[in-house]
């Protein structure tokens, strides 16, 4: 038997060629970078869409040069129509939530660093890994195709509520093939995510190096692991939901469409379906999805902070248990998106309690971060600035959630800009900050070169101040009752709010422009950055014990042995200011 195995090892000579090395690579590091690159493309498109939206809201009659070429019906003469505004809104949300926030912090960094951080050569299922990326890529292409079909992208929002999304083109522009492409894209995306989550879980459970107990895994690894557990179950619900929606749209079933609807003067032939069923299925997925977006960010930031503080966090274990509680509670709160949806009002109360309870582990994590800062020796660099900025944004976004968790307050704040402010703070800013932090932190490891710190700090300052300028005012608008998803503001009380909207638009365009500093830094440093050592940040976890970038099998054929947890910084009377996980050096009081 052993002979058979050995001969197979020699029989599989490494393949050469551009395609196998860079395109259909089975190497988790290449796949991680592919996910990250896809996320970069998606975030760029999503950002441009947001500029168009903000522009249109304050200058509705402005002609956007060139837009009429992409959107003949949506933006004739370059002027955005109300339906095109809704298409932009739908695609912005879809791209950002799915292709940026689920891709970069989780699939991107997770794929690259999870195996290394646990001491493995690769993921448990490299072929599935490669397939999961290409599946996600296909989903992206299908989605973006919607921009180029005659009727344009769907206008039902990233939430695609039925019956608007289920009836078909009678319900409005973009709701014919545009919506079909959307549903198909998301269904394909689910499959990619399921494969990916499967890989993460199996790898974490089975491929840890000797000495790497679960509690010795870095917080970032734990975050990816918990996220993949959530993702496995959440996407397993979204996929059926998409299938049911597709059947309603294309096969005449009535899962979500009741009888007697008259749309565009046509009596629809469906009967008996429940629009609320779509909302339940979608949000049962949708709420855990936002924790899929934020938990890897929490993990990355904790990881970066542990390093930047030059001391352990007050308790990594507490953060890990808190993340697990958040993961667990995330399944019980989906109804808080549906307080005024017409569902049983008693259910609304029931849902508000676990929603409020989630504040507890989230606060614990925040207090641990804050408490850890006390007495630290924070090394300020681009990575740590974004990590600290994350903490600030997490507080801001979390606090506004506190309002929305109460059904009585949701009566007046639901569907206003207050909600938009809340989720942009946590997802659109905080999670993005974690991606930035992770990038500045891990770029040296991934490429062997350092990013430019000056540009990084400039990027940070403009983005930090800029995003507060954009999203804090959203809360004020919401308090007054500014309704969301409006292509134009024609309500009587809106003229008084337009100056604030103009301020937001200018802040958005400026902050958006500053992101080019980051894009430039990425590309320039990739080719011209200063050479990076194996451990430029004096880190303890396993990724810093291998060269920058690591060899194809991560540890050069060695099997690393782990002696400590990754928090050995500064405190325990060890020699020097840190001890690596792989160092056999004894530590007092461990």
């Amino acid at each position, binding site marked *: 038997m052993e002979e058979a195995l050995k001969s197979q090892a020699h029989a599989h000579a490494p393949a050469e060629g551009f395609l196998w090395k860079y395109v259909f690579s089975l190497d988790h590091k290449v796949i991680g970078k592919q996910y990250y690159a896809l996320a970069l493309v998606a975030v760029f498109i999503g950002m441009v869409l947001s500029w168009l939206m903000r522009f249109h809201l304050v200058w509705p009659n402005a002609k956007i040069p060139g837009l009429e070429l992409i959107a003949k019906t949506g933006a004739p003469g370059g002027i955005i129509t109300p339906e095109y505004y809704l298409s932009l809104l739908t695609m912005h949300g879809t791209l950002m939530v799915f292709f940026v926030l689920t891709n970069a912090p989780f699939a991107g960094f997770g794929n690259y660093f999870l195996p290394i951080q646990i001491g493995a050569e690769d993921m448990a299922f490299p072929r599935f890994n490669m397939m999961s990326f290409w599946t996600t890529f296909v989903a992206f292409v299908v989605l973006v195709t919607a921009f180029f079909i005659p009727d344009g992208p769907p206008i039902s929002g990233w939430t695609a509520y039925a019956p608007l999304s289920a009836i078909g083109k009678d*319900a409005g522009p973009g709701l014919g093939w545009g919506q079909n492409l959307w549903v198909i894209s998301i269904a394909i995306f689910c499959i990619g995510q399921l494969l990916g989550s499967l890989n993460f879980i199996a790898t974490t459970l089975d491929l840890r190096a000797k000495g790497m107990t679960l509690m010795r895994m870095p917080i970032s690894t734990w975050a990816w692991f918990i996220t993949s557990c959530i993702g496995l179950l959440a996407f397993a619900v979204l996929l059926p939901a998409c299938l049911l929606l597709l059947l309603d749209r294309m096969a005449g079933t009535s899962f979500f469409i009741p009888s007697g609807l008259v749309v565009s003067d046509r*009596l629809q032939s469906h009967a008996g379906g429940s629009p609320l069923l779509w909302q339940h299925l979608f949000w049962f997925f949708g709420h855990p999805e936002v924790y899929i977006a934020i938990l890897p960010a929490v993990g990355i930031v904790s990881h970066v902070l542990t390093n930047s503080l030059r001391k352990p966090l007050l308790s990594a274990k*507490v953060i890990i248990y808190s993340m697990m509680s958040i993961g667990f509670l995330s399944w019980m709160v989906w109804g808080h998106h549906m307080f*005024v949806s017409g569902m049983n009002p008693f259910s609304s109360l029931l849902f508000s309690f676990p929603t409020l309870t989630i504040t507890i582990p989230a606060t*614990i994590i925040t207090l641990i971060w804050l*408490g850890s800062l006390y007495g630290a020796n924070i090394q300020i660099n681009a990575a740590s600035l974004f990590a600290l900025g994350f903490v600030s944004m997490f507080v801001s976004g979390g606090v506004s959630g506190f309002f929305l968790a109460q059904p*009585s307050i949701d*009566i007046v704040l639901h569907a206003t800009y207050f909600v938009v402010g809340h989720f942009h703070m946590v997802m659109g800013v905080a999670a993005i900050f974690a991606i930035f932090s992770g990038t500045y932190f891990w770029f040296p490891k991934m490429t062997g070169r350092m990013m430019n710190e000056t540009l990084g700090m400039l990027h940070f300052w403009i983005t930090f101040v800029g995003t*507060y300028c954009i999203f804090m005012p959203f809360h004020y608008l919401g308090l007054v009752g500014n309704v969301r998803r409006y292509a134009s503001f024609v309500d009587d009380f809106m003229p008084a709010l337009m100056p604030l909207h103009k301020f937001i638009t200018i802040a958005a365009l400026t902050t958006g422009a500053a992101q080019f500093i980051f894009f430039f830094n990425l590309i320039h440093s990739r080719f011209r950055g200063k050479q990076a050592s194996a451990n430029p940040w004096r880190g303890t976890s396993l990724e810093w014990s291998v060269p920058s970038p690591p060899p194809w099998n991560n540890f050069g054929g060695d099997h690393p042995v782990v002696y400590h947890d990754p928090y050995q910084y500064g405190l325990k009377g060890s020699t020097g200011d840190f001890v690596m996980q792989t160092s056999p050096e004894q530590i007092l009081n461990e």
Partner: protein
Amino acid sequence: MGKLFGVILAIIALASAYPIVTHMYVQPVDISTHGHAIDEQLADTMAEAGLAFVLAQLLLAFCVWKFSNRKEGAKVFHLWGGARLMVVGAFILVGTEVLALGVLGQKAWAEVYFTAPKPDALQIQAQAGQFAFYFRYPGQDGKFGPLHPDKIDEGNQNYFGLDPANDVEARDDIVTAELAIPVNREIHLLMHAKDVGHSFYVRELRIQQDFVPGLDLSLHFTATQTGHFEILCTQLCGLGHYNMKAYLNVLSQEDFDKWMKQKASEQ
């Protein structure tokens, strides 16, 4: 740079709080009977959340200011109490405050949703369709005629699909494009969706509720002041969503009766 972070964050936190503290952006006047509970709840939450926000940001600003890029050889140390203090703190601060607000908040919710409309409430039916609201009053017989979706004919202003020829109750139904109600009289609003999901939102009434196709939903409320108020659609319903609105006219009983007579003659 750490000091700069501390200073800038402190400015941001205080600048963010300023518009709230100075009441620059507030809800319009409350004209409902149940709204005060909601407003109180909102104010309490704002006070607690606002305080938590400012304190947390200032704490973060302070820590970064004081503990970043310290002198060579500076000792790192743990906060007294460590993780345990943080966990206990979180449970006490957040646990009690959050759950208290949650429990107290039930009252405001219950006033809207757990009380039944009074038997003498004025029943009005609202229909939401792409992209307008229409309202129907039951007329002298106090009954609504049945709806026939296949008979909807916007061109002939049969928005609800009524069949007065065959349905006796439909003959005296009054259909309008504005919602006029008498002041200080409880209204029982029956909500019917014609095509897709919509929502009914009147800021001054502190009320919001989705129209769900296929579901018989309703709201009840009482307006305490006369005036002219906007009804907004807040559930994305298609390209005209931004423009889908109607007006709520709260009239004195006299004016309302006059208006009803006039509308009845226009049918």
